[in-house]
């Protein structure tokens, strides 16, 4: 057990370094750009912002007369105390406040669709590899590869147009209707699921193929192993061989890929949110880009990065339970 704790701590150390790298990048990108960041910002916002907003903006970026290293430490200190600065688009609301409500919606939408597409894709991959060359194996992968070729958000546009606008089966925007009050009550939850259905469906459609193909490929390799032949020779029921012998082992690379794909899927989810005007991180990102709200953009980058790193660590823990070899 002590070795597994060591392993988890080592991974945690890596994520801490990755988080530090992201923070540092976040600090240096504006300062590495051609020209002086302060004058870029102030030139863009001259006349549009009142003096207090300018002072807040200056403080957010630590664009003071301090030497660079001093600015860097002020910046780190502010972040560690949870201060991401003040938004320009939603002045004078602090960035942390704006992001925290939106974060819940993104976790709900992206998380649910990720889990559905991962489990469904893995299951389909297992079945396709088991009956290799069968109907499922020859029809589904090319079809899903074709769907995967569309940009996430474009498929979302088509889905919204067809089922929301054309047929009127689904709501056109937002995460819940006006008639319900947010909270732990049944009508609200049903309404939230109803609003999330179409965006989640498009995300599942686009990402399903990847999970299925990678599971199918590892599963085929696993099925060639001697212990599978032995399990079959023993006369074990074929469902048991498929699920407990082959799939149990073949799922591990897929799980590692889960952590890896998280950032990518999340990027697609953010664009999907924009199409559906879903009040999550993606929608905020669009607002931030439109208003050139730099503090909000940086805050979003930070929260999303930290969320992805955290989720990766959870995947590490899950692998520890699934793969006895890492526990040794």
């Amino acid at each position, binding site marked *: 057990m002590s070795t597994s704790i060591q392993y988890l701590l080592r991974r945690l150390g*890596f*994520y801490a370094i*990755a988080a530090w*790298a*992201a923070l540092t*990048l*976040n600090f240096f*990108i*504006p300062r590495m*750009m051609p020209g002086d*960041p302060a004058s*870029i910002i102030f030139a863009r916002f001259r006349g549009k912002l009142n003096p207090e907003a300018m002072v807040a903006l200056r403080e957010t970026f630590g664009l003071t007369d301090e030497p660079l290293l001093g600015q860097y430490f002020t910046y780190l200190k502010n972040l560690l105390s949870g201060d991401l600065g003040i938004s320009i688009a939603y002045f004078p609301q602090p960035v942390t406040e704006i992001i925290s409500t939106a974060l819940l919606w993104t976790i709900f939408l992206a998380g649910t669709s990720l889990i559905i597409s991962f489990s469904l894709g893995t299951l389909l991959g297992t079945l396709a590899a088991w*009956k*290799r*060359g069968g109907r499922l194996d020859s029809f589904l992968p090319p079809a899903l*590869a*074709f769907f*995967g*070729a*569309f*940009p996430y*958000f*474009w*498929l979302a*546009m*088509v889905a*919204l*147009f067809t089922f929301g*606008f054309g047929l009127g089966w689904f709501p*056109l925007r937002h995460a819940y209707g006006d008639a319900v009050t947010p909270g732990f009550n049944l009508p609200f939850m049903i309404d939230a699921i109803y609003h999330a259905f179409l965006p989640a469906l498009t995300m599942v459609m686009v990402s399903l193929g990847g999970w299925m193909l990678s599971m199918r490929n590892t599963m085929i390799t696993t*099925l*060639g192993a001697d212990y599978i*032949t032995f399990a*079959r*020779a023993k006369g074990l029921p*074929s469902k048991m*061989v498929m699920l407990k012998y082959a799939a149990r082992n073949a799922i591990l690379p897929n799980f590692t890929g889960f*952590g*890896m794909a*998280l*950032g*990518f899927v*999340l*990027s697609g989810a953010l*664009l999907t949110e*924009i*199409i559906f005007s879903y009040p999550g991180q993606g929608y905020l*990102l*669009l607002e*931030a*880009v439109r208003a*050139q709200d*730099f503090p909000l*953009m940086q805050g*979003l*980058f930070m929260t*999303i*990065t930290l969320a*992805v*790193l955290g989720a990766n660590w959870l995947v590490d823990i899950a692998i520890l339970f699934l793969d006895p070899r890492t526990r040794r």
Partner: protein
Amino acid sequence: MATRKNDSILFRWIKGIIHNKKALSGSLLVLSFILIAAIGPYITVDPNAFLDTPLSPPSFSHWFGTTGQGQDVLAQTISGARQTLIVGFATGFFVVLIGALIGGISGFYGGKVDDVLSMIINIFLVMPGLPLMVILASWLPPGPLTLTGVLVITGWAWNARVIRSQMMALRDRDFVSAAIVSGERNIRIILIEIMPRMLSLLASSFIGASIYAIGAQVGLEFLGLGDVSTITWGTNLYWASNDLALLTGSWWTFVPTGICIAFVSFGLTLINFGIDEVTNPRLISERNWRKYLPKGKGNDGITPVIKTHA
């Protein structure tokens, strides 16, 4: 001698692609879009001109209808191909170049060098791409150069990792040891001895990176981070959404562009499947054997001991 050998490799590749159904159809698909991108702007009407009532549906005078600015959608779709494909392929090229450089060095030298470089690769791998791209692109002047740069910065790590592991596998082969013993310089070993053996990996990495670049580029431009005054597939979608295409029911402003993007990506994916089959001997031998085997049997590499499924 060396050139003749290279010629024959190239020749074998072309032959392999022509004989492989997937690779051939993928290549034709992609080549036709490259052709459209090259000559398209000379044969269509001016894509920037105001021609007809805004948002008029497809008709004989405008096959794909008009945009919210009264421009011809067909002309915009065709001329949008050029910059999108150039940025996509350029990104693919630089991603592979940087990936080969960093992954190659990391895999070849190992030790401390590998520790540091792998750490950097892994950090870039876990960082979510889109928000980082947004931050970078929002500070730089909008345009194709910014897009390429941003896409390369966020996309190189995956290729570096793949190339690194391939390099580690090849480095232990006898021919590399022989080259080291005979006193060849490391640069020469990497470039002349090892890299040619990775050609198929590099080719499929290039294609994979181009697919990624086209998708991510369109996403960034859709957000409004490209140069919205130029015509690309991404800005077409940006304007479609800006002109409320969804709420006005004008599906023709975004459907053609999306289908083009999907066709190019799908064509590239097919080429990659094809390369895999052409260069992976296991898949080839299996395909050759299949015609001698009874249908549906013996193609899973397992000797049937008991009847497992009816």
